[in-house]
């Protein structure tokens, strides 16, 4: 598999605080790549830099071999990278289908050229289960549906790489299950997904590979099984063992 996204030495300071320090990772085409870490680990900061919402202090971000660090977000979208927001940001004065239409019209050019905008909007709303709310002003949507709308809008830009920021945060288990099933279907459709999540069960069951961040630095990287066994990760999440335990005790489960 080829590398779709290559991040090297990515660093971001907020004043004197290093939110992300010298981060390296590669996302392969067609995988779901998870980024996890405790609160304040720099997940969303790293994410915003890739999406173009935030300029890196240093480092390089290459997408399909092209350097995109410090590109504005609307140009990054044109290349095929689109993000969702952790806290949904619908255009509240507009209906659900209008929200999707904006993304369809202004996302990747391939998307707009397809014509039949209404049909495409309908297809996306059906895929995300929002058809019944097409004409609803987004201000009246539930949290779960707002999350779905974030996904529908991002998909409307026809992304190659989809960045999902805590898409299951604040959802009940059934809604989480539904959304994760959608993500897996997207992977089958050939979309590469970079996925930040807090919900461990969601990440472990969905991602092909996982990067663990702690205090803005890479702590570990590997398959879900490798991460679950990683001592450094367990320590970051659960704290250091204070008493000796018999060998073979995993110390804690993630």
């Amino acid at each position: 598999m080829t590398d779709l996204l290559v991040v090297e030495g990515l660093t971001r300071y907020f004043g004197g605080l290093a939110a992300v320090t010298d981060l390296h990772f590669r996302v392969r085409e067609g995988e779901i790549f998870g980024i996890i870490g405790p609160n304040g680990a720099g997940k969303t900061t790293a994410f915003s830099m890739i999406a173009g919402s935030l300029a890196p202090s240093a480092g390089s971000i290459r997408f399909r071999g092209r350097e995109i660090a410090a590109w504005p977000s609307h140009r990054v979208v044109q290349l095929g990278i689109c993000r969702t927001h952790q806290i949904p940001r619908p255009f509240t004065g507009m209906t659900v289908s209008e929200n999707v239409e904006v993304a369809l019209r202004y996302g990747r050019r391939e998307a707009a050229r397809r014509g039949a905008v209404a049909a495409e909007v309908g297809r996306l709303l059906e895929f995300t289960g929002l058809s019944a709310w097409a004409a609803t002003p987004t201000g009246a949507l539930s949290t779960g549906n707002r999350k779905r709308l974030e996904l529908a809008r991002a998909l409307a830009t026809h992304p190659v790489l989809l960045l999902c920021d805590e898409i299951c945060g604040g959802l009940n288990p059934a809604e989480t299950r539904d959304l994760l099933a959608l993500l897996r279907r997207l992977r089958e459709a050939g979309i590469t997904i970079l996925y930040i999540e807090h919900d461990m069960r969601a990440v472990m069951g969905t991602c092909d590979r996982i990067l663990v961040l702690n205090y803005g630095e890479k702590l570990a990287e590997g398959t879900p099984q490798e991460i679950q066994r990683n001592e450094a990760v367990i320590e970051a999440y659960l704290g250091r063992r204070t008493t000796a335990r018999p060998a073979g005790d995993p110390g804690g489960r993630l």
Partner: protein
Amino acid sequence: MSGAPASPVRSCLAAAASLLVLAGLLLVPLIGASGNTIRLVLITLLWVATSLAWNLLGGVAGQVSFGFAVFYGLGAYAAAFAINGGINPYAAFAAGGLTAALASVLIGIPTFRLRGPYFAIATIGVNEAVRIVMSNLEITGGASGYRLLATGRFSQGEHYYTALGLAGLAFLISWFVMRSPFGLALRAIREDQDAAADLGVPPFRCKLAVHALAALLTGMAGGAFARYTAYIHPDGVFAFTTSISILLMPVIGGLGTLLGPVIGAVVYSVVQEEMVVNFPQFHLFLYGALLILIVLFEPGGLVGLGRRIARGLRGRLRGGPGDPVVAPAPLSRVGP
């Protein structure tokens, strides 16, 4: 904000009503209306054009500018120079509009880096700076003003139809923009600029474009005003109160709607006409009070108020609750 998608029946009704209003306006000078009435309608039509123009930037795209007198004034002066230079008046209006549009780009490049209230404050600064410069330049006649040379016979009818044409143009452009993908992008920028950019909308470019479009219309209206009054001075056309008036009309009528700015301009002009003569300062109090009431109780302006009353009446006729609000949607359990 801009209302529900119009049904075919409603669209037909709206088109018929627009044609009726247009026919009425076309007839005004022909049915023996007094010169004074024609003057009032003419000025109102010019305000309708500027009010619609401001609404594109302030209402649809949500960028509140206190600096539209700059475009009105530049349009007025550019057209006045052109007319005195012997250029066809209609070409002169276009020159006024283009001058204003060019200025809008120069002003927009630095100020659109600011957001919300900071943008608004910056435009106040620009407005004052331009007014002071214009008051002290030799070429504008300074504070004593600038007189247009009379060319041919004065025809109030011609001025009237110019104003009507401009108002119609502004209405058509607004109608197109609000139905276009560009209008959708502007509304997205109004709601959340960063989220819009994350979906591929280039906010800076869109704002510059709508700013230029609004300035073009405002500048042409300024040009028509200059030709009509044949005398302009910086403390008139570049005055901060002109900027306030241009902003006040769409706010009174209903921001981001098509009819709101028109209604607002009519209300403003009539109030101005009735008040200024009898109570020279009272209209300021009235606008202030109106603005506070609108911001506090009916952000949708007169159009919003009308819609609310219509909803209430319909609800009463059906015997249902008077003011149905959008019910929060139930939590989705729709599987993929």
